[in-house]
């Protein structure tokens, strides 16, 4: 009896978490005529027409490529700058260490809306408006607190003796960082990398503000501004949603433990 209650609760939670997305998936394979009729809930003749129209009719592949470039570059840059800082903070003598950590943490609390107007003016002045660089630059900085925070925790867990031994063996601190410490912190790099990638793939406010044309538009903006001549093309939107969400769902299932680790890093332990 108790067991049945537990199973029921688990099923209810699963349905609540997955239901809306499943409904979107069902919508994406419904023929247009059935979109405006309920029942039937499930399509009588599933169709891939919406996927075809999304992947060929609009420059959607371009948006996906833009998002992929932005998210990949952001992840690499944020990890490069962030891991340097995290290593320094965890293993080396740094003046004002406490202050710097506090600074990094409080920078993560800045609301994007409070920085978007000056950044827009700067980006316009630099001639970077409507380029992917504008987004990469902004996202890299906005994800730095997260990267630094997660990686500092990881570097701290590596014993100091390992670092000292590598220095005794003749490594400079930078060589030791690249050859010894980074490989040891690989799980942390993966964790931070996933979180940064997901943030950059999903970000909307800056992407909406800094891009103007299709050449630099990213996926979230494209989905928000989905072209609708007369009526909202619900089937196409659903297909586009599924296309951009599937990679994320796959990542979640593969890296579930890493993500949980990243989300809880520092916030619970510290």
């Amino acid at each position, binding site marked *: 009896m108790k067991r049945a209650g537990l199973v029921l609760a688990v099923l209810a939670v699963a349905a609540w978490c997955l239901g809306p997305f499943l409904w979107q998936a069902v919508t994406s394979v419904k023929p247009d005529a059935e979109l405006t009729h309920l029942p039937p809930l499930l399509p009588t003749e599933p169709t891939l027409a919406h996927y075809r129209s999304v992947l060929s009719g609009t420059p959607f592949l371009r948006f996906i490529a833009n998002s992929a470039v932005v998210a990949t570059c952001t992840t690499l840059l944020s990890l490069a700058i962030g891991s340097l800082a995290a290593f320094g903070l965890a293993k080396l003598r740094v003046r004002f260490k406490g202050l710097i950590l506090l600074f990094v943490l409080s920078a993560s609390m800045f609301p994007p809306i409070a920085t978007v107007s000056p950044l827009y003016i700067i980006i316009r002045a630099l001639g970077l408006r409507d380029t992917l660089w504008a987004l990469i630059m902004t996202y890299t900085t906005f994800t730095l607190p997260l990267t630094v925070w997660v990686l500092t925790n990881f570097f701290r867990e590596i014993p100091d003796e390992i670092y000292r031994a590598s220095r005794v063996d003749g490594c400079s601190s930078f060589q030791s960082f690249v050859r010894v410490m980074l490989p040891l912190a690989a799980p942390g790099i993966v964790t931070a990398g996933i979180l940064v990638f997901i943030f950059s793939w999903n970000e909307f406010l800056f992407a909406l503000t800094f891009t103007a044309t299709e050449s630099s538009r990213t996926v979230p903006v494209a989905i928000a501004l989905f072209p609708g001549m007369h009526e909202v093309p619900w089937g196409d939107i659903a297909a586009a949603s599924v296309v*951009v969400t599937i990679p994320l769902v796959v990542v979640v299932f593969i890296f579930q433990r890493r993500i949980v680790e990243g989300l809880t890093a520092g916030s619970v332990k510290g």
Partner: protein
Amino acid sequence: MSGRDQGSRFVLPAVIALSLVTVYPVLSVLYLSLHRKLLIFDISEFTGFDNYRFLLADDRFWNAFGNTAYFTMMSVSLELLLGLGIALLLNRTFRFKGVMTALVLVPWAIPTVVSARMWEWIYNTDFGILNHLLGMKINWLGSPFWAMNAAVVMDVWKTTPFVAILLLAGLKMIPQDLYQAARIDGAGRWSIFGRITLPLLMPVVIVVLIFRTMDAFRVFDAVYVLTGGGPANTTETLSIYAYKVLFQTLQFGYGSTLAVVVFLCVGAISLLYLGALRAEVEP
């Protein structure tokens, strides 16, 4: 080894980047908020606190402020309750727990814009599945009463996973022998929950509240894509109002004033919670 301060050069790039892209803009937005600046006409004049004086008398600002406060209170408290329930559930032993954790994370990973469009379709008056299941014809996103609550439900769906995952980590840190001792002493389920679980979970609850309250207070994309702030500005939050003034009417001065207010509110909220956290950790 040479150099007492050799770590600084490792830290410097990050500090410079953060200063340029977060600290400088915040100072700059403060400066802008004291100006009348219209981007299209190249007008920029210092007006002191005029914008702030205007803000205090601006009905639309107070409306947005009220909406944001309502949205934040409703969604954060619902997320906390629901998230606690899910965390307690995931803390029990059953098979397929890994799969279940991954399932719970799905709404968290889905882009906010995508989830707004998903829910927009669910809420559709004529063809939405919600009205179909309820057997009603409610205009969820078109009615001033329902629209904000519809946005709250969407936000709760999207962000409860984060709350649940953090609370679960907190639950796992509570030593098991405390529970055993309580059971031996004959404590019931509810008194164990009220006297052991909840008090020991409190620091994590406050951390969750800090993150979620700040996030909810600066909400933009979720509501902007779902309703655009309508109907009749009943779902217009502070960030949406600021965005519209900045980028639809291009009034960078007054828009920046609104942005500063969001910044100050978020700062005040975090200070309040940090005080509570300190009181909790060091009794």
